[in-house]
């Protein structure tokens, strides 16, 4: 199945706009939490074979250094996984920005555990805000698995491609972000399998009906 048979160009454009709104919501929630200004890139929606996803991600990440990743699965009628990828130096800077007591005054942890705890919390906030907004706009209700984190991996090995069916196709919805004036940047993206496509097309048509 090719990209063009999965979603038409105007459907992809609409999905991109909806993701723009969802990523904007996520940025606003994080900015409020840690008093920073989040600069977002133009979002992009692409349909790719799942086997190409790791390459796509490696190409998006600047440099070849280790990265940390938060993954959170979500499911409603639209289902998939959301990922937050940060270069490891960004996740260390996040710990500093959030304070050494962690979010919500949690007890001080050993540095590596604190770093993991911090990116889990940040990932949970960004992913939750983004996916919830997406669900609201597409009139869906989402449930979530608890987020999991993988710390300091090479970009080419971090992505769990084995969890996807061979020969399947993924919709990649991504945005790059950075914190203004801080050494923090990252990559937030959603992957959804072709199983959600039929519902997604109906939801996009319904959204168009409400706004067009």
């Amino acid at each position, binding site marked *: 199945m090719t990209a063009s048979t999965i979603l038409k160009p*105007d459907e992809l*454009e*609409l999905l*991109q*706009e909806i993701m*723009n*709104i969802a*990523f*904007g*919501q996520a*940025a*606003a929630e994080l*900015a*409020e939490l840690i008093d920073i*200004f*989040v600069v*977002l*890139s*133009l979002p992009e929606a692409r349909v790719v074979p799942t086997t190409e996803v790791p390459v796509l991600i490696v190409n998006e990440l600047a440099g070849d250094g280790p990265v940390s990743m938060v993954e959170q699965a979500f499911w409603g009628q639209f289902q998939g996984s959301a990922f937050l990828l940060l270069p490891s130096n960004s996740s260390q800077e996040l710990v500093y920005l959030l304070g050494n007591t962690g979010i919500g005054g949690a007890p001080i942890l050993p540095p590596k555990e604190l770093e993991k705890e911090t990116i889990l919390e940040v990932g949970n906030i960004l992913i939750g805000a983004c996916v919830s907004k997406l669900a609201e*706009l597409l009139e869906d209700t989402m449930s979530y698995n608890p987020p999991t984190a993988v710390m300091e991996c090479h970009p080419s090995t971090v992505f769990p491609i084995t969890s996807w069916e061979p020969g399947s196709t993924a919709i990649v919805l991504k945005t790059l972000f950075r914190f203004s004036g801080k050494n923090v940047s990252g990559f937030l993206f959603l992957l959804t399998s072709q199983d959600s496509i039929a519902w997604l097309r109906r939801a996009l048509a319904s959204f*168009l009906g409400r*706004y*067009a």
Partner: protein
Amino acid sequence: MGRSVLIVDDSNIMRQFIKNALPPELGPALWEARDGAEAVALYETHHPDLVFMDLTMPVMDGVEALTRIMALDPTATVIILTADIQAKSRARVMDLGAAAFARKPPTPDSLMDALAQADQHRREHP
């Protein structure tokens, strides 16, 4: 004759949403730009009464376009219509002279509110 409008957004679909949600007293004179550079050029040529401006766009973003339009015409009425709803984004563009700030997706009610906000802003900052 209603007020003339310039709509600035890189998304064709979003420009259509904005046109569909415009309050009836606006138009029929209407121009569209796909990025900030086009917006500045169209503003210079037509001096529309009202501008709806996105922030995140290729070529020239909305902040730069707003800055240039306000430099060309300090009385310009620019309504920012964006998905970037951070408080600091809002504060920044209002400091630069935007007359109102509204979030996407646009609805007739949200654009009506933004227009009222912009009219109030213009009365307070003639």
